[in-house]
C-alpha cells in the first residue's frame, strides 16, 4: 500500500480537492477554503441529463447545494475579532456573494483582561430588557442572519462567532470544503430535481426517487458528522462548542 505524500506539518490544514482549485487562504490561523465554479461541478449532472439546457443544470446543482447546507447545517464560517458596539445588542453579519447565514454554532467574547470566554446560547425572549449593560455572557440567533448579545455590551469587546451558512440560490461558486466531501450527494440532489421535472425527455420518477434517497443519505451523514463535532470516534453527547481561535 502506498503511503502517499502526507507528512505532519505545523499550522492549520490546507486540504486539497485538487491542487489546482482548492487554493484556500489562511489568515490568523483560519482556513478560508477556495471555491469551485458550479458550471464545473455540474458537468457530471449535465452528462447524465444530456438534453437539459446547461443553465438549468447549473441551477439544479445550486439548488441542491443550498438544500444540502440548509438541511445539514454542515457548512460553517468564522467571524473573528469583531468589535462590539457599546449599547448595541443586535448585529447582522453583513453580506456574502454566495453564502447566507442560517444559524450560529458558537460564540466567544474577549474580556477586558484579554482572556476569552465562550458565550452560552439562549432564547432571546427570556432576556430582561431592563438589565444594565455589561460583558455579554449569552447570545441568541435572531432569524435571519442576526445575533443578539446579552447583556448588552458596555464596551467594544472583541468577539468570535462561528456561523452556520447555506449557499445562496444565485451563487456561481461552491466552497471546496463542502464539495470535497459531499459532491456526490449534491449531484444526487440535482439529479432528483431534474428527473422529477414533468414532461421532459429525461423525466424519470424512478431515477428521481433513487437519487432522492441518496441525497437524503448524504444530508443525514453530514448532519451526523456535524453533530459529532466533525470528529471521528467517540465524543461526548453534548460537547463543548468548538471554536477555533
Amino acid at each position, binding site marked *: 500500500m502506498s503511503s502517499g505524500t502526507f507528512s505532519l506539518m505545523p499550522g492549520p490544514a490546507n486540504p486539497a480537492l485538487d491542487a489546482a482549485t482548492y487554493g484556500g487562504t489562511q489568515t490568523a490561523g483560519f482556513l478560508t477554503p477556495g471555491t469551485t465554479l458550479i*458550471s464545473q461541478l455540474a458537468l457530471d449532472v*449535465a452528462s447524465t*441529463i*444530456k*438534453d*437539459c*439546457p*446547461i*443553465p*438549468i443544470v447549473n*441551477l439544479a446543482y445550486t439548488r441542491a447545494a443550498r438544500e444540502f447546507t440548509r438541511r445539514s447545517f454542515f457548512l460553517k464560517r468564522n467571524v473573528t475579532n469583531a468589535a462590539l458596539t457599546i449599547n448595541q445588542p443586535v448585529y447582522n453579519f453583513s453580506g456574502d456573494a454566495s453564502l447566507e447565514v442560517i444559524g450560529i454554532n458558537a460564540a466567544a467574547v474577549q474580556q477586558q483582561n484579554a482572556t476569552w470566554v465562550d458565550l452560552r446560547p439562549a432564547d432571546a425572549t427570556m432576556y430582561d430588557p431592563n438589565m444594565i449593560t455589561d460583558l455579554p455572557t449569552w447570545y441568541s440567533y435572531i432569524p435571519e442572519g442576526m445575533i443578539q448579545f446579552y447583556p448588552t455590551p458596555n464596551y467594544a469587546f472583541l468577539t468570535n462567532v462561528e456561523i452556520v451558512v447555506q449557499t445562496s440560490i444565485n451563487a456561481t461558486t461552491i466552497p471546496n470544503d463542502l464539495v470535497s466531501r459531499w459532491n456526490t450527494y449534491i449531484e444526487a440532489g440535482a439529479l432528483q430535481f431534474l428527473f422529477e*421535472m414533468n414532461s*421532459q*425527455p*429525461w423525466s*424519470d420518477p*424512478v431515477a428521481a426517487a433513487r437519487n432522492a434517497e441518496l441525497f437524503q443519505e448524504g444530508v443525514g451523514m453530514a448532519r451526523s458528522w456535524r453533530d459529532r463535532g466533525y470528529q471521528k470516534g467517540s465524543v461526548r453527547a453534548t460537547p463543548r462548542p468548538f471554536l477555533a481561535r
Partner: protein
Amino acid sequence: MLLWLNDVLAAAVSLKRDISPVVATCPLVSGSVQNLPAATGQYGSYVQCMEPLYNTASLNAVNKAGMTLIQRRIPNWRTITQTTDVTDVMFDDRSPTVFHVYPPNNGSGSLQMLVGGVPFMSGAGVATLNTSTTVIPIPDNYRQAIVHGLISKALASQTRRQDTQKAQFHWQIFEGMILASKIAIPEATPRLSEKEQA
C-alpha cells in the same frame, strides 16, 4: 443543364433540408438572437440550423437545448451579462435560419455549426461554367435521384421532345428517392426510459 441542376439540388434540399450538411462558421452579433450567415463556396444559402458544435475561439462545446425551460426558469435571460462563449443554442424548424444563444453574446463570439446548405453549381454571373470537374456537395447515394430530377427537367422543357407525362413520372421517382432515403444526420435521440423504449 447547370441551371436545371441548380433547380434539382434546390428541390432536393427543399424536400430534405439536411441533405447537404456543412460545417459553417457563424459569427455572433451582440445579443441573444442570431441569424445564419451568408453562404460561401459552393453553397447558395444556408437554410437550416442542424447541430451546434463548438465556440470557434475557445473550442468549448455548445449544447443544443430547448427554450421552454430557460424561458420559465430564467425569464430575464436575454438581459444577463453578455459573454464571448455561449453554452446553449436554441432553434426550431419554424424559423430554421434563426437561432438563439445562451448566454447572450457580446458580439465577439463565433460558433461552428452544422447547417443545411443549398448547393449552387454556377454563380450568379455564370462567368465560368467550368463545372465538369466540380464535386457536387451532396452524398453519392442521392446521385440516381438527382439524375431522375435532371431527366424530368429536360423532358419538361419546351422543346420538340417535351413530354410532361414522362417528366412527371421522373419527378415522382426523384421525390420518392429523396424522401425514402435516411436523413443525412440523425437527430439526437432523447433519453428514453426502458419502459418507453419497449
